[in-house]
């Protein structure tokens, strides 16, 4: 697998670390029933067969966190962007 880091260019899988469901949003700690909100956010994951938005970390590279859209059946990369707002 090769991921095109928006900063470094296309790089081999071995430079990246994976962190799962890219839909993760840290819940508002002041929300109603924060414990349930955190439980849901931390433990329940999107796990589709097909297009999946996910976090990848270019740790052996520019250390950018990326949001990669990837097909979990074909492993084809459908899109890559910086996970955070570009500074």
């Amino acid at each position: 697998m090769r991921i095109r880091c928006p900063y470094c260019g296309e790089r081999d899988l071995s430079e990246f670390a994976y962190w799962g469901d890219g839909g993760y949003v840290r819940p508002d700690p002041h929300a109603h029933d924060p414990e349930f909100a955190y439980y849901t956010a931390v433990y329940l994951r999107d796990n589709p067969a097909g297009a999946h938005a996910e976090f990848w970390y270019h740790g052996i590279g520019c250390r950018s966190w990326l949001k990669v859209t990837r097909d979990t059946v074909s492993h084809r990369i459908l899109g890559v962007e910086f996970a955070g707002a570009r500074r």
Partner: protein
Amino acid sequence: MRYSLFSLLRQSLVGHRGWQPVWRDAAPKRGYDIVVIGGGGHGLATAHYLAKVHGIRDVAVLEKSWIGSGNAGRNTTIIRSNYLLPGNNPFYELSMKLWEGLEQDLNFNTMVSQRGVVNLYHSDAQRDAYARRGNAMRMHGVDAELLSRAEVKRMLPFLDFDNARFPIRGGLLQRRGGTARHDAVVWGYARSASDLGVDIVQNCEVTGFLREGDRVVGVSTSRGDIRAAKVAVVVAGSSSRLAALAGLKLPIESHVLQAFVSEAIKPFIDTVVTFGAGHFYISQSDKGGLVFGGDIDGYNSYAQRGNLPTVEDVCESGVALMPAISRARLLRSWAGIMDMSMDGSPIIDRTPLPGLYLNAGWCYGGFKATPASGFCLAHLLARDESHPLAAALTLDRFGAGRLIDEKGQGAQPNLH
């Protein structure tokens, strides 16, 4: 026909014309008491124990492809009960006990081979962690021995003890651990269940659930709707997909784990060995192939195949541990889709939907659990209460913070 040396000899005289199909390739009926989705080891074992222990025979096992096509048919076949935590340890020991009587229970040689499992340690801290685990095992009556470096050397003189980057300092041995012939486990359970009246339906993919309000009352499949009082999802790597059909999200990610086999060679290693300073474990199959594996690739996947970084990692670790395998040739590599749970331990439980039951989260260690998993799920389905030895394996433990996290990695499935 009962299998025995006698029946084999008799058949050899008549050109083996008398053998029957090992299991009936059934067509689905309109309804069953219980429908088990997934014709892997766990689904078939569930059906076997439902019929045999609980007398519930109006059962169908629905398999989208051929039975054993999933992880049951592609795992590295290691069985052991060397767990640390009280939520796991007695459950896996139940499984080990069932393995020990499986051939007789099924009248099928599943080649359970208690050749021993050695986990190597390479530091004092690792030794102490293994001692803690070994002690927990012993407290439950499970066999465990903490081996010194010299003892390991006597057993496995060809490991790289001195020159390696991480010297071997000893190991934790479970002699009763070992391997079993994975396909035979599938076929043996299928044969027994089928003989007891269970329908094994292949090429039957579940595509949805029949609902009456919240209650699940059956499934829709590629071969029509099938009603059932109870439906159990036992689909390992596909758990999240099935759950999604029922509108549920699970604490599970599906990950790809590769496995490898070498060309067949004469007996080379007669125990199961796991490396403690890298991801690598190895055993030798009865056919002679060195069967080995390592870490998961680390990303979500349903592809049943992996990539080169893991291949390299596994081979580097293997050669670091056993420099002699460098010249053995890798024959084939493949992969399976693992249901990696958020604490690395499984789930056998009801779901929030009445009538729907879940057996999932087996990670890379569910083969050894096959008998106990089927046994405990059958218990849950038949009695509507958890088997005491599987009582901790609940779905709500994540919300409640009662995790069973052997590795202490937290909610990061690819680190378990």
